């Protein structure tokens, strides 16, 4: 087995045993980026020098057995929405071309403290707005399982990197499914923690009340390790929670015996591919065989989650993106005869079509005279969705469903139809609106394309989500299947 094919925990053991060095490991991953990077287009920027410098520092730490942590020396990819001090951070947008933040995101600082190795910035839909990565301001990402297909989005670069061996693990961000959906479509594990579990400081905002950073990994235990490193209160993010962070690995192996697992009937949506539905039903049966009590539940407002999301998220985005006016950093069009012309030219040329669409949607929804009918109404719907989950979680410990109604679709298949594209997130969006956590774990292949099982647990019960996902994973071999680009695990 090649080094870039392994898990965090495997590699950690090899590193502390001095079987390998972090530099060797980093070079192995860098070689893989070199070999397949032009096919996946997963990275916007590969930080070779930084990675090797960090790897050498990690090796010092490992050699002297000084403050060695689970991620010391482990190469990780960072979605381009995360600010890294002195490293170009563009959120996949041309409007931030040339922007190098003078500070790092809190999660980045925490990973640095762990001694992790930063491989680079991964491609994503512009400002994390999209479900296929085709809205990147630079270039689309290709799915390592089938290069003519999308990897999902918006964290498509992170997903493709982990699935192709171009990173051992990655961080993504999830506003309406942007970690879980690409994880499902590329056959990896993607975890959206509860809003407030991970600091958003230094995450270039899309929709502030929904954005959450989370791990994208090869398996569930790696997800627990990575979440452990980044979770916890941050005084710089007032919306981060001071709930204590439990030891996620400690309860991982407790199994599902005696657990009550709910299956929301609304999650088997119209348009779900039969192979996906079959795979999810099989997964549910398997968990039942593992000793879980399965119960059908109802989340009655699921059908209005998508429309509510497409009011709230664009409304917040329209405001969050107002700062990109070309006067202080990033792209400036130039040539305007006055301030307004200059603003307009910069934003016209700097933003892509989907971003503009959402800015217009959001601006409209917040406008005087429309606020009550749209934004306020959507917030009421959000409350109902929160209550739906609270109600369901009085009966069950976690919920099961598909992550995405379909497998990876061909590039270009939905670019002309925004609503078809939005429907990709129909089963992931409720977890963002409902302030709960959700993890996607591989549960099968359909025609050689991965399918993801979604486990949703109550707010701040990441331990429960991980436990169910881990029980499923250990009972199956799905996570061991790897993309053709990753190569056979020989």
């Amino acid at each position, binding site marked *: 087995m090649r080094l870039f094919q392994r898990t965090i925990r495997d590699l950690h053991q090899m590193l502390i045993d001095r079987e390998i060095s972090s530099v060797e490991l980093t070079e192995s991953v860098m070689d893989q980026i070199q070999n397949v990077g032009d096919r996946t287009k997963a990275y916007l920027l590969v930080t070779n020098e930084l990675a090797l410098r960090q790897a050498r520092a990690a090796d010092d730490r490992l050699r002297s057995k000084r403050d060695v942590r689970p991620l010391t020396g482990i190469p990780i990819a960072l979605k381009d*929405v995360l*600010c890294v001090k002195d490293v170009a951070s563009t959120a996949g947008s041309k409007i931030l071309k040339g922007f190098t*933040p003078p500070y790092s995101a809190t999660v980045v600082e925490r990973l640095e403290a762990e001694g992790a190795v930063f491989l680079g910035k991964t491609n994503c839909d512009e400002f994390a707005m999209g479900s296929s990565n085709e809205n990147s301001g630079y270039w689309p990402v290709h799915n390592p399982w089938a290069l003519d297909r999308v990897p999902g989005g918006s964290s498509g670069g992170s997903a493709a990197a982990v699935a192709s061996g171009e990173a051992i693990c990655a961080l993504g961000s999830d506003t309406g499914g942007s970690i879980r959906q690409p994880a499902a479509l590329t056959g990896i594990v993607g975890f959206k923690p509860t809003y407030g579990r991970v600091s958003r400081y230094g995450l270039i905002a899309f929709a*502030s009340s929904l954005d959450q950073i989370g791990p994208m990994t090869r398996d569930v235990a790696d997800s627990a390790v990575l979440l452990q490193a980044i979770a916890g209160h941050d005084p710089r993010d*007032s919306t981060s929670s001071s709930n204590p962070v439990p030891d996620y690995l400690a309860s991982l192996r407790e199994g599902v015996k005696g657990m009550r697992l709910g299956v929301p009937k609304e999650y088997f949506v119209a348009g779900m591919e039969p192979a996906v539905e079959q795979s999810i039903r099989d997964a549910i049966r398997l968990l039942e065989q593992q000793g879980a009590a399965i119960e059908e539940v109802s989340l009655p407002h699921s059908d209005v989650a998508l429309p509510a999301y497409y009011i709230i998220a664009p409304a917040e985005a329209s405001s969050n993106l107002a*700062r990109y006016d070309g006067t202080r950093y990033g792209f400036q069009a130039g040539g305007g005869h006055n301030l307004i012309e200059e603003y307009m030219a910069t934003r016209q040329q700097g933003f892509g079509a989907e971003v503009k669409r959402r800015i217009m949607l959001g601006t409209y929804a917040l406008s005087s005279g429309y606020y009550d009918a749209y*934004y306020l109404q959507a917030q009421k719907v959000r409350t109902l969705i929160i209550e739906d989950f609270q109600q369901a979680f009085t009966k069950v410990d976690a919920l099961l469903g598909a992550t995405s109604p379909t497998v990876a679709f061909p590039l270009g298949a939905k670019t002309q139809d925004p609503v078809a594209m939005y429907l990709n997130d129909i089963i992931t969006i409720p977890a963002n609106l409902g302030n709960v956590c959700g993890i996607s774990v591989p549960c099968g292949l359909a025609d050689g394309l991965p399918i993801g099982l979604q486990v949703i647990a109550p707010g701040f019960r990441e331990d429960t989500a991980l436990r169910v996902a881990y029980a499923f994973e250990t009972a199956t071999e799905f996570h061991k299947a790897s993309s053709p680009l990753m190569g056979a695990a020989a």
Partner: protein
Amino acid sequence: MSVATRYEVVVGLEVHAQVLTESKMFCGCSTDYLTAPPNANTCPVCLGLPGSLPVINRRAVEATIRTALALNCEIPEFSKFDRKNYFYPDLPKGYQISQYDLPFSRHGHLDFDVKGEPHRCGITRVHLEEDTGKLLHEGAIHESQASLVNFNRAGVPLMEIVSEPDLRSADEAREYVMRLRAILQYIGVNNGDMESGQLRCDANVSLRPAGQSELGTKVEIKNMNSFRAIHRAIEYEVERQTEVLDGGGRLTQETRGWNDARGLTISQRTKEFAEDYRYFPEPDLPPLDVSRMWVDEIRASLPELPAARRERFITTYGLTPYDASLLTSTRPMAQFFEETVRLGAPAKTSANWILGDFSRLLNADLREIQDASVKPAHLQELIALIDSGVISGKMAKQTFEAMYRASDPAPALAEAKGLSQISGDAELAGLVDQVIAENAKSVADFKAGKAQALKFLIGQAMKLSKGRANPQRLDALLREKIS
């Protein structure tokens, strides 16, 4: 003005007051924007860099609640921040964090006097927001090739104090702002400096036919940087609106800027182009629960406010309401007065000096009482000299001015004393003899070794001389005579 009979003037004021905190509203940067080099006090948060997040400065919230309590407002238990969205280069995030429908306070009132007549103006709300940066244009704004932005001011906490349209004249408006400024200074939340913009005032002015309850078309006036400007601008605007209405014209709802040099208001923008600020709750900041315990703590820590102090000055010191109002108009002046009285000066005389000669000199120099070299002890001593007949009233006026002009008032005071001091041994001999004759016991005590007795004897001689005797010479002469 005859206008008052035909039309009723309706004025409401919006006062912006920077909060005197060490650090900014949502980050740790210093609030010093007046002396720091451009953009020195900035960070990713107040520059609105991508990914940065605000954290509320608790002290700024406390100052806002403190202000609201001083203005008799209700403090709701639940409050939140909102985003006010608009584009401008001095606004780094493209929105200002402000408060919209759930401000920290509402429903208060402010009492003030106009020429001794009591008035009350309703306070709609006091809320908290962040200040913007400052633009610097190269030359005139319309010809300037480039504009520079200084973000040192961006994120400085700013309170907005909105009044009800309860004011009926330029006089009332000016007195309201003066009284409000006094309160802000009393409670230590703002330094009251209008010139540097730390206290700013906008006025909504409208007219309606006398007797009509419906409000007329309002005009917002901005850019008034002094009490005088507020008064002049409102007077001007009332006159302008009267002319329009008398001429059968209709007023436009608009914003007008006061041009102090030309003494007139100029239209800046009309309602048709009014911005839609698209307010919505700030998702980066959780709503705030304002605990009753916290509010009680803040209330308990409030100092005596101008209105209460004014009442106390009337009852305790027997001052006229007019004098009491003037003396309590700023906290430093009231404190100066009380300290002078505490040192032994009569209240009425102290008030006359402070409101008379002292204020005249201060006003001429545009200085504040706390910046003057004359301190309460100096004034008390001067008053004592007059009261004991050492110097005449006329001489006292000259002495006061000399004290005021000097960086150290002591020599001027000493000189006044010296001019009338009795130092000649011949003159003092009589005094000394008299004191020895009248205080046989003390003389005996001193002979017996009680040094204290000599001090008493000197005191008696000073008293007889009405303070004019030279105490050093008295000391020498007494020792000589007794031994």
